[in-house]
């Protein structure tokens, strides 16, 4: 055990280096993770945006938080994919039969997910700036936004890890992400919830995406966040802990 601890950071950086290479070498990954949300943003701002009444002047400002969450939801799908491949091709077994800190086999993918999502979020924010996104938020607010986005990424990454570790087929391992990508549509991410029929509205106002979107929106526009931020944090932490528990359980079942 002592030795495994000594090598934890060293092994971790090797594993991180490995999966980051995977990301930078598969252009389709980069495209899906960045281009799809950007296309969505263009579509909403320049096609639907004119007809959407949000009560705020700048629709890009209104839209951006939801787009970022969508980008994360589609980005984490690759964690499931990579874990599934490692498991199925016997790469995980090879690693586990080696004198390494075993937990890095899983954590390497998780850390990679955070790093790659941070990259795609920065790219999307830069594009949003070109499209007229402006924020009056100070450093602290930006840090809070970053913190919430990283927490959200971790929460969804652990859900993806469950899918990747337990999936029987590639399709099964990646199917979990569709509802996640869809969730922002039934929230206040694109349009205010006021115009929705009652049942949809109740769902929209009480699902995690809305509280997270509202919190980020308030932080970026320098408005008070109120209690919404605690609801958002509770959702992120709650999902993260539950998903972490089941992911580690699934992982330990493989490691035996």
């Amino acid at each position: 055990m002592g030795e495994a601890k000594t090598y934890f950071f060293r092994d971790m950086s090797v594993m991180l280096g490995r999966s980051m290479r995977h990301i930078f070498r598969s252009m389709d990954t980069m495209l899906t993770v960045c281009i799809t949300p950007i296309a969505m943003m263009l579509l909403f701002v320049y096609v639907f945006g004119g007809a959407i009444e949000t009560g705020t002047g700048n629709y890009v400002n209104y839209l951006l938080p939801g787009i970022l969450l969508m980008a994360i939801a589609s980005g984490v799908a690759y964690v499931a994919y990579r874990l599934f491949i490692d498991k199925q091709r016997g790469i995980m077994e090879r690693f586990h039969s080696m004198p390494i800190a075993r937990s890095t086999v899983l954590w390497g993918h998780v850390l990679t997910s955070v790093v790659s999502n941070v990259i795609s979020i920065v790219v999307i924010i830069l594009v949003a700036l070109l499209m007229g996104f402006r924020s009056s938020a100070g450093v602290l607010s930006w840090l809070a936004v970053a913190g919430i986005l990283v927490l959200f990424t971790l929460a969804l990454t652990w859900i993806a890890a469950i899918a990747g570790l337990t999936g029987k087929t590639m399709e099964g391992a990646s199917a979990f992400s569709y509802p996640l990508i869809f969730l922002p549509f039934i929230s206040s991410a694109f349009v205010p919830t006021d115009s929705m029929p009652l049942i949809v509205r109740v769902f929209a106002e009480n699902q995690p995406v809305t509280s997270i979107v509202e919190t980020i929106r308030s932080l970026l526009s320098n408005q008070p966040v109120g209690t919404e931020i605690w609801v958002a944090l509770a959702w992120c932490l709650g999902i993260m802990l539950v998903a972490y528990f089941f992911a580690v359980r699934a992982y330990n079942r493989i490691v035996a």
Partner: protein
Amino acid sequence: MKNAIKVTGLQKSFKNTEVLKGVHFEVRPGEIFALLGSNGAGKTTIVRILATLLKPDGGAAEVGGFDVATQPGKVRHAISLTGQFAAVDEILTGRENLILMAKLRHLDQPRQVADGLLKRFGLTDAADRKPSTYSGGMRRRLDIALSLVGQPQVIFLDEPTTGLDPEARIEVWKIVKELAGSGATVFLTTQYLEEAEQLADRIAILHEGRIIANGTLAELKSLFPQAKVEYVEKQPTLEEIFLAIIGKKEVV
């Protein structure tokens, strides 16, 4: 160290199926030991227990002088595992795959180690290509090369030639013979009798959860009566009966 591997009374069940019912055998340092058995006999289960990937329900196993249950870290230092399917990273090049292994084994000069193995396995020209461009034999060669990073004492090869064409099979046989020549202990599983006969110093046969025979090829041969010429009445096969009936019907 008297034995490279020592297995006593190993038991393992999956759900209600008893796969291993008390397996005993020993492997001496530096020998090629073949575990022979049909599909589903439990060969891979034994390999996985010895490689610290699976916990046995009963019995004990020592590899490289260390107990797999209580000193798995020490065992992992002593071994390497090549599974049934070439476990190579498809996105990394052959060279990068080797460097990755060298780094994970915490070696000082990962690049030099990789270069040495690439040369030894005739993969230097293909070193900077992805394994997806390799032939089946080349993939297997890379796979085995990955296992040799860090010079483990005990090398597990789980069905190393399954799915390979005859040419690639002979190539792998050559590699295995060289491995044993270098002083490492090789534990290989196979369902091909010829493979065991070609490679192994000693052969154990796993059948219905137990080792039913264990010894050198000569010893195994001596278990059976001497070859002799016998007169045997030839019974018709079902195929011959079938064809005869069909033929008759058509005549009718």
